[in-house]
């Protein structure tokens, strides 16, 4: 998750700048600390019997050590301003309305909603992009301030209620890049991660098409029972499963239409396996205290039915 292991052009430009400033800082550090250490060691005394020569200053020398840092800083500033426009520039150009390469990321306490307006889908905590393709991202928040940050691809942009901020992502090689909320946003700020999955263009298109499909009605009886449980115990008040055209449900929590395909649960808290899914549904407050997902105190049968349903939603 290091910004110094960039996987896209924006992060690469920032990493280049980082190496320049680290190089300059290292030189300054070594020179100044050496001067200090040398002065202390060279001029130390166990006892002082007579006073040293009283020197009150030296104007030319002081002018030099004012000018030299100013020059170094001016160079650094030039690098900074150049990198700034290269990194942030593309985000300022608004994409065409509903363009397929624009996505919306919406911060919630404590998960990320990801919408592809062009494809009219909504998913959670996982952004899929095509390798080599710059993607415009509009970020907004429904509650408090979050910060959207995928360090290997791009610097952070704050996610502020009442505003839409813009950034862009581009990955130059396939991979899964972890991101995490970077602005303190309450109890579970620590557990608000997301993944950016960069796939070759054809795989990305296949993924997008699959996500657009409604959920397949379950054939397995346990999963069919799960559909009943999903409505009866209240999951449906916050979560949506799109069944054909009839899919209804709440939008407070993630859309679960394809939850079985996601890599993680609870915003990157757990890998998505049947075991972790069971643990999460059975006791979300133990894994992520303070989150909106309540302990439903499900009996074993209901839990198994729900699991069968959710695992089938691929």
């Amino acid at each position, binding site marked *: 998750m290091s910004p110094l292991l960039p996987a896209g052009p924006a992060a690469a430009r920032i990493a280049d700048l980082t190496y320049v400033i680290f190089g300059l800082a290292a030189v300054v550090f070594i020179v100044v600390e050496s001067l200090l*250490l040398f002065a202390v060691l060279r*001029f130390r005394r166990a006892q*002082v019997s007579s006073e*040293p020569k009283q*020197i009150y200053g*030296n104007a030319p020398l002081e002018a030099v050590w*004012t000018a030299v840092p100013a020059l170094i800083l001016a160079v650094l500033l030039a690098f900074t301003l150049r990198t700034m426009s290269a990194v942030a520039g593309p985000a300022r150009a608004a994409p065409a309305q509903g363009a397929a390469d624009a996505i919306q990321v919406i911060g919630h306490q404590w998960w990320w909603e990801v919408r592809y307006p062009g494809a009219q889908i909504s998913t959670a905590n996982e952004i899929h992009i095509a390798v080599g393709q710059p993607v415009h991202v509009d970020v907004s928040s429904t509650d408090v301030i979050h910060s959207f940050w995928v360090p290997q691809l791009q610097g*952070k942009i704050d996610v502020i209620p009442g505003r839409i901020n813009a950034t862009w992502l581009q990955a130059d090689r396939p991979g899964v890049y972890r991101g995490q909320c970077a602005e*303190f946003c309450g109890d*579970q700020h620590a557990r608000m991660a997301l993944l950016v999955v960069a796939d070759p263009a054809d795989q990305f298109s296949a993924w997008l098409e699959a996500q657009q499909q409604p959920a397949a009605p379950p054939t397995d009886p346990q999963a069919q029972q799960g559909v009943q449980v999903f409505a009866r115990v209240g999951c449906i008040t916050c979560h949506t499963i799109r069944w054909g055209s009839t899919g209804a449900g709440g939008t407070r929590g993630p859309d679960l239409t394809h939850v079985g395909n996601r890599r993680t649960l609870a915003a990157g808290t757990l890998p998505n396996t049947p075991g972790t899914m069971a643990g999460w549904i059975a006791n979300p407050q133990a894994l992520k205290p303070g989150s909106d997902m309540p302990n439903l105190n499900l009996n074993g049968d209901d839990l198994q039915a729900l699991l069968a349903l959710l695992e089938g939603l691929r």
Partner: protein
Amino acid sequence: MAATAELPTVKPLTLSRPRAIVDWLSTIDHKVIGLSYVTTAFIFFLLGGIEALLIRTQLVVPDGQLLDPRAYNQVFTMHGTTMVFLFGMPVLTGFGNYAVPLQIGARDMAFPRLNAFGYWAFLLGGLFLYASFLLGAAPNGGWFAYVPLTGPTYSPGINMDFWALGIIFLGMSTVAAAINFVVTIMALRAQGMTPFRMPLFVWTILVTACLMIIAIPPLSGAATLLELDRRFGTHFFDAQGGGDPLLWQHLFWNFGHPEVYILILPAMGMVSEILPVFSRKPIFGYAAVATSTVAIGFISVTVWAHHMFAVGLPLVAQGFFATSTVVIAVPTAVKIFNWIGTIWGGKVLLRPPFLFAAGFVAQFIIGGLSGVMVATVPFDWQAEDTYFVVAHLHYVLIGGTVFGTLAGFHYWLPKMTGRMLDERLGTLTFWLTFVGLNLAFFPMHISGLLGMPRRVYTYPPGLGWELPNFISTLGAYILGLAILAFVYNVVRSLYVGEPAGDDPWDAWTLEWATSSPPPPHNFHRLPPVLSARPLWDLKRRGRPRGEAPDWIEPAESGDPVCPSHWPLVVALGLALLFAALLVSPVWAFAGGLMCVAGIVGWTWPAAPEPGA
């Protein structure tokens, strides 16, 4: 020292004296108030340190179980709030209180009763904030309290009411102290002490006080708006009601960045006092060090939005704030070179005050460099809100403020108590602090660059964050040991420390021209001030030059010198008012009445002295 050898020594304030507590409650002596500030702030420092150790213990391994998120968020919020508002500012105010009147040759601060009020408001404001722990409702929205997380919807408990009201209360204390400093330094300097003969510590306190007067009102205003949003249904920060969450950030950082310099400038002043004395040379380039202090003060009010590079400001604005932030590094660099120039060619005595002062310079270089790094906007888009910034700010605030403060303690405690600290223990404290600081905070640069965000109560394994976090925790415990060694040294010195004498360091500024501790009226008489080093002139040149008077009189303060309990009454009234605002406005009215009564008593003209 010869000048005051004939003076009687004065016993330090001890609690064994009858009526000691009653005297303390009505004292207006800047030295007693200064010591009270320093002691109280240090106790808060210990509390903040315990909070730091809780944080580090929670984070020593991934998925730590010591604190749940609700507890963790209270602890880290109170750690930041404590270290800034209850340790950093008051401890420096305390040193300023003690040292400034002595260094400028005055009898007291300009407004001794206002001074007492400042202390009582600080003490009660601190107790007010900490009372929240008794209710299990300590502030939990971060010391920066970003809305809307801290607003009524997302923080419905009284946690953040404690914070907002406590901050308003403490702001009154700070502004009172700051105005007093400015007037004292402007009006009460000894005859001959022109601005460019003032001790550099006085310069830094003057600039700091001006910054406090500029920086605290935006914070108090913002906290008031927050409390109105929380309690009275206004929408200053509510986007849905037409408010703006970024308004909070602008107001907060209008306070918050000058605040950083409020916390560092007086420490720089201490270093500028101590390095020369222990190098046996005057400061190199006095004028440059003094004017760079003023320059830092001015520029520091133009840099606030560098805390907001990720909020989506226009690029031109970000460029402006990057530039102003980079510019402030120039006067800072000048100071560092002048300090090295001071040591250069001197005869350096590696005694504890010098060690801490030189350690300050060594650490501050690191904090300064990482500060320039985070000023480069694109790097900040990656580093902001990660542990890299935690590393940076602790190099500045521990390497800077705490090292400076420890230098100040080792330098001035003999003056305050009349007894020396143990030098071997002092040296041990220095090395423990030095090692602890670097072990605790250097690895945070790494964990930050590995992508670890700040303010997380836990983190998952497998991201490479385990080792740096483990080392950081180890370093934090070593810092804890260092502070224990220091506390032991101070307590030991109070009982068995060597008597200090008037001038243990053979120093040059006026505080060393009186006894240790000084008498209540500070000076019987003063040497004339003919340079920035009046005692040097006195000692090295013998009697002052013929054109100057042999001895001069210290300046009197503006208040009557008799003790007064009215400042405490006003502060108690405010405490009642703020506490009542948490529960019932009726009692707030009572608190307000008590304040008014206190102010009437305070300003009631004293009966004319008989015969006057």
